[in-house]
């Protein structure tokens, strides 16, 4: 992807519940490369190949970010609600952008005073209760991205790259309402109804090495399906990649994707970040290329397999 496109992607606002502008941008990208797009009823974006007849594999990432929402006006300032987990290392006074009802931008300084965030905008005009606020930082140089948006944008960027390849029988999904409780994880997996799923999660990797795939063996929301984990490990090793187990105390969409409805065998695929930080982080964009290469191979290898039968066995027949 071109540098300008990546920078534009990272600049778009996407506070939980207000992801539409980001999803519209991404949807247009996929439509321009002639993929089919649709949404679930909570607005999650679902992308498939025009030849797709069934959803063998769902590859998903959350598209929403943490931020703030205006909840009250007190004289010359606006009181804010936190949406999602605001990083503990964020300064108590930062530059931010207010996103109004119709997505006009208003610059502001936001400050934390006695444990409560307040916004001081350059103008009051057009601001209403419920408007969201974002604080973005992004630098892209020499294939390295430094940003506070990597947690969600890295995965979106990766799916956009993946979409340039053959994704037949695969659904690429960008979920909404995730950082506030993985809500559209439920609705998206119910809509797509895949046989197996991979959830992308950008996370710190200790001792990062290139040409390596990191599969999550444990996090607070899901224990991966062991057979599906082995299938993915075997595929990674067959194309010369190292496959390394990853452990985390975090929680993500997988916590609901795997246990919704009849259940979906799921594994989290980690997008390596170089810092153990919940605010600013660093990503070597070569990891996107490695991961895309791996996922291409997975999609290809699943073509002639009844993967769900292999992993789960016969489905329960009520008759």
């Amino acid at each position: 992807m071109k540098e300008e496109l990546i920078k534009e992607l990272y600049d778009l606002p996407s506070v939980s519940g207000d992801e539409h502008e980001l999803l519209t941008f991404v949807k247009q990208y996929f439509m321009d490369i002639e993929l089919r797009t649709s949404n679930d009823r909570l607005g999650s974006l679902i992308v498939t190949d025009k030849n797709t007849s069934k959803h063998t594999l769902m590859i998903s990432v959350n598209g929403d970010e943490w931020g703030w929402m205006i909840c009250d006006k007190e004289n010359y300032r606006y009181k804010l609600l936190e949406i999602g987990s605001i990083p503990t290392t964020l300064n108590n006074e930062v530059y931010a952008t207010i996103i109004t009802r119709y997505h006009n931008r208003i610059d502001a300084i936001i400050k934390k005073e006695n444990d409560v965030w307040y916004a001081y905008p350059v103008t009051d005009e057009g601001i209403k209760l419920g408007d969201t606020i974002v604080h973005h930082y992004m630098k892209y140089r020499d294939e390295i991205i430094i940003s506070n948006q990597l947690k969600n944008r890295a995965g979106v960027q990766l799916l956009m790259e993946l979409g340039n390849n053959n994704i037949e029988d695969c659904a690429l999904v960008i979920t909404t309402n995730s950082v506030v409780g993985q809500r559209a994880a439920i609705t998206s997996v119910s809509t797509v109804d895949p046989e197996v799923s991979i959830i992308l999660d950008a996370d710190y990797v200790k001792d990062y090495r290139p040409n390596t795939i990191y599969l999550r063996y444990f996090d607070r929301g899901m224990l991966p399906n062991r057979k599906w984990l082995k299938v993915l490990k075997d595929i990674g090793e067959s194309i010369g990649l190292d496959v390394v187990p990853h452990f985390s105390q975090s929680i993500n969409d997988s916590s609901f994707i795997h246990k919704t409805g009849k259940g979906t065998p799921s594994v989290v695929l980690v997008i390596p970040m170089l810092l153990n930080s919940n605010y600013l982080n660093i990503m070597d964009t070569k990891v996107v290329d490695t991961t895309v290469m791996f996922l291409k191979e997975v999609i290809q290898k699943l073509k002639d397999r009844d993967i769900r039968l292999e992993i789960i066995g016969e489905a329960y027949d009520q008759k």
Partner: protein
Amino acid sequence: MTKSNMDILFQLSNLIGIGSDEKYIVSYLEDVLQEKSIMDGLQSAMFTSKKGNHDLHTMVAVHIDEVGFMVENIESDGSLKLQMIGGIWPHILLNQDLVVTTQDNKQIHGVVVSKASHSLTLAEREKVVSNDEIYLDLGVYSDKEVKELGICIGDMVGFDTKAQYMNNADFISGKAFDNRSSVACATWLYEYIRDTDKHWLTLAATSQEEVGLRGARTSAYVLKPDFAIVIDTTVAKSRVNDEVVELGNGVVIGIIDAMTITNRGLLNYVEGLCENHKISHQYGLFTKGGTDAGNIHKSEKGIPTIVLSIPIRYMHTHRSIINRKDLESVFELLKIIVEDLTLDKLNYILEKNYEYKED
């Protein structure tokens, strides 16, 4: 607001219906609406109007349960140990009038025990009584008399309060306005729809909201509606509560709560309707509680949902206060929505999202 509409509100407030035992509310609704309900597995009661030529099926969800208690034990001295059902601050319970409903529908009155002020130590005066220390004094000599009254462990116990107008008749006090005030609005709407055939609507009187939005989950699964309107109450400003929402300022359009964020297109739609039709409105951003929408909106493939709330003072106590003007605003808005919204329009609003503007 007609006299009969207010009668319905007062009756609903006075009835006892603790989570999982809402039968009196359901019977009352069946009687008022002259219609038998269909139930889901948690005994949420659903009343559905004729589909006719309408393509949009709307679920109007109102929880019918109230916070209360269950008899946990009959003590030897004839007092009842109580288990709370739903969130109640014990501080407001001391010496309150409660009523036990027996298995054969008798109502037995009692008083919550408390220490006389003379007997309190300084340390006790500073403490709030714990959830484990709520007992009901029935004014009997022993447990033998309690059993003769027909009271059993497991019987439900509610606040013994009757609704009444306050010194300005716009204000009404009573128990269980969370959520019977909403049930009243939904009942008026259902009668209006049935008489005018303007929409295909299900009034879903959901059970067990106060203990985890349980009936909302099951009723949404059964109905699979295209769209849902949840009507509930929200904490309002008072002498001791510094909130954004105030009594008398109109219907509260929900933007965010602990479990739901309203779709931006639907927010613009509802806000636009209020502005165009000059309906008094305010905004709900209370994140310390949730509503049935929390389970409805993410049911299966997702159900686009809005939350309309009625401001209430002293929620989850034996006597709350609401303002009838707010109920009027809710009812007016509901009528406008059901007369205006079609499936095509809903899908268009969802597609446009924040870009949607109601003309």
